[in-house]
């Protein structure tokens, strides 16, 4: 029993880590640009597929570094060419647009890499279990969680310490004032969109090693990421972080007791939060409300 619970908590933390990376990227874009990026799951899949294609030439480690950057570059391109045209319109248009973009990206991935699942090769070092008794904790899982932790700490340090990070945080609160102070808001939003896609691409590479690749691999992560943002509170990235971990572990623990309710419990948490604390666990009053 202890091992079963431990197994599920480990699973929960890993799924939670994916939710966190996805949700942080989504939240960055949502907070600054007021756009829900429906295609975020497809940027995740893109990151995974790019790593799959690049790893024969660059090796796994090279692909791990390069493919998130490439994903970010494609994200920047999409933002520059299309999404920035609709920032100042009714939010219904940006929703519809990214929704359509998600369809196109998913279909394109299916066209290029085929509809069937592909396995992602891992270096031998990572594929071993750490000990025989805890067979489910492979080095890869430890590695994934470490990468996510490093990425999250890196992101928060960047937002707190750097000038651009400061502008992003300020823009979240009041974009108009930031623009008045002479910051190029157009470039800031583009950069921010790329940053969100970078996180998506990174989680894509990591997820590919865990669950393999398929054209709609990001779809299952998209909705829980929305819930992580709602639970954590819109406008607070720390809240999003805890929201993602919370629903990941809660879903995994429910699996121990009653497996088919593991999805439902996520929604239960969301409803409870909306009922008791509508702004979210760490959300700021009046943020997007």
């Amino acid at each position: 029993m202890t091992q079963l619970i431990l197994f599920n908590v480990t699973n929960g933390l890993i799924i939670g880590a994916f939710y966190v990376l996805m949700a942080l990227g989504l939240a960055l874009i949502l907070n600054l640009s007021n756009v829900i990026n429906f295609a975020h799951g497809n940027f995740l899949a893109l990151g995974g597929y790019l790593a799959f294609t690049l790893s024969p030439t660059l090796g796994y480690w090279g692909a791990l570094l390069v493919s998130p950057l490439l994903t970010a570059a494609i994200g920047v391109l999409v933002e520059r060419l299309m999404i920035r045209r609709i920032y100042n319109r009714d939010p219904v248009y940006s929703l519809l647009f990214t929704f359509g973009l998600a369809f196109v990206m998913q279909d394109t991935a299916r066209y290029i890499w085929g509809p069937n699942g592909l396995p992602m090769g891992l270096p031998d070092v990572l594929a071993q279990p750490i000990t025989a008794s805890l067979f489910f904790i492979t080095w890869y899982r430890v590695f994934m969680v470490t990468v996510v932790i490093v990425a999250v700490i890196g992101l928060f340090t960047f937002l707190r310490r750097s000038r651009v990070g400061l502008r992003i945080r300020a823009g979240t609160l009041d974009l108009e004032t930031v623009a008045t102070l002479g910051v190029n808001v157009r470039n800031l939003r583009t950069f921010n969109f790329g940053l969100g896609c970078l996180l998506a691409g990174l989680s894509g590479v990591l997820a590919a090693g865990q669950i393999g690749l398929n054209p709609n691999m990001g779809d299952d992560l998209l909705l829980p990421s929305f819930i992580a943002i709602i639970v954590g509170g819109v406008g607070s990235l720390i809240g999003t972080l805890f929201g993602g971990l919370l629903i990941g572990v809660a879903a995994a623990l429910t699996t121990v007791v009653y497996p088919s309710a593991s999805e439902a419990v996520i929604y239960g948490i969301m409803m409870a939060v909306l009922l008791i604390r509508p702004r979210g666990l760490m959300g700021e009053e009046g943020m997007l409300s």
Partner: protein
Amino acid sequence: MSIAIPAAEPRRFVGRDQLVLVVIWLLLITVPLWLPLLGGYTALAARVLVFGLAAMALNLLLGFTGVLSFGHAAYFGLGAYGAGLTLRYLVHSTPLAMLAGTLLGGVAGTLFGLLIVRRRGVYFAMCTIAFGQLWYYLAYSWNSFTGGFDGLRDFQRAPIGLGPLTLDITTGGAPFYFFLLAIFAVAAALMGLVLRSPFGRTLLAIRENERRARFLGIPVERHIWLSFSISCFFTALAGALYALLNNFADPMTLHYSLSGYFVVMTVIGGMRTFWGPLVGAAVFVMLQDYISSMTVNWMSFIGLIFMFVVLFFPRGLLGTKRKPAQG
């Protein structure tokens, strides 16, 4: 030299509206006559009616209250499952199935509306998407009751007894189409009445300037909640009709992509017009039917339609260049 009289302008728009009304009803009533000539089939027109009703119901919220719901498939799907489950497990009665479906979706929407009515904009949209997916997972995983991924089968719409007469709608084709059209007409008339009432005018006021409406003492939250609730009831009715149309309810009727379809139908037709969503539904259903028969990459085409509409065609077919009515 006489000066143009401003009062003449509104009358001209009334004329245009009435023309649209007459054309739409003429086309709808004569569908079984002309659609086969164009290579269509009556079930396609029935689908347009059902989706059109759902999109018009969504537009009550989206176009006339200015609140963005991206989760209306939930209430559509609940309506479908409510009707299907009633026919399968409870009674073999079409009117009761419709009632059950409408109530199930409508009440769920009304209760959920209470939770999110203070949210606005994309945050509101995100809550509606997330809540909608709850029902998708429920229908998906409660295999024994809902049929799971394969959908709910093994139910049939029943003939309707009207005193001595019996309306046989079981065969599909023209009789069932006219049955749908009659329900659609009643629902459209009710929605029109809601929008013409003082309540409907207040919704417009909230859409145009929420802060001013609040200063005027209008209970904005309660109005938005009521609008959401009414919209959900009509969407659920459309969902119930959809289950009757196909004798089938599947989890995709609850999926958020269907919500996206409803929104794009509304935008294609024109968000701020009453009949726009129906026109949008017609265009979208025909395109989808045509494209999915032509290519396996239909997803790309549907996606490109979304992007194209947003970038180049945001006002929709019936939308005018005119600024939205003031006050």
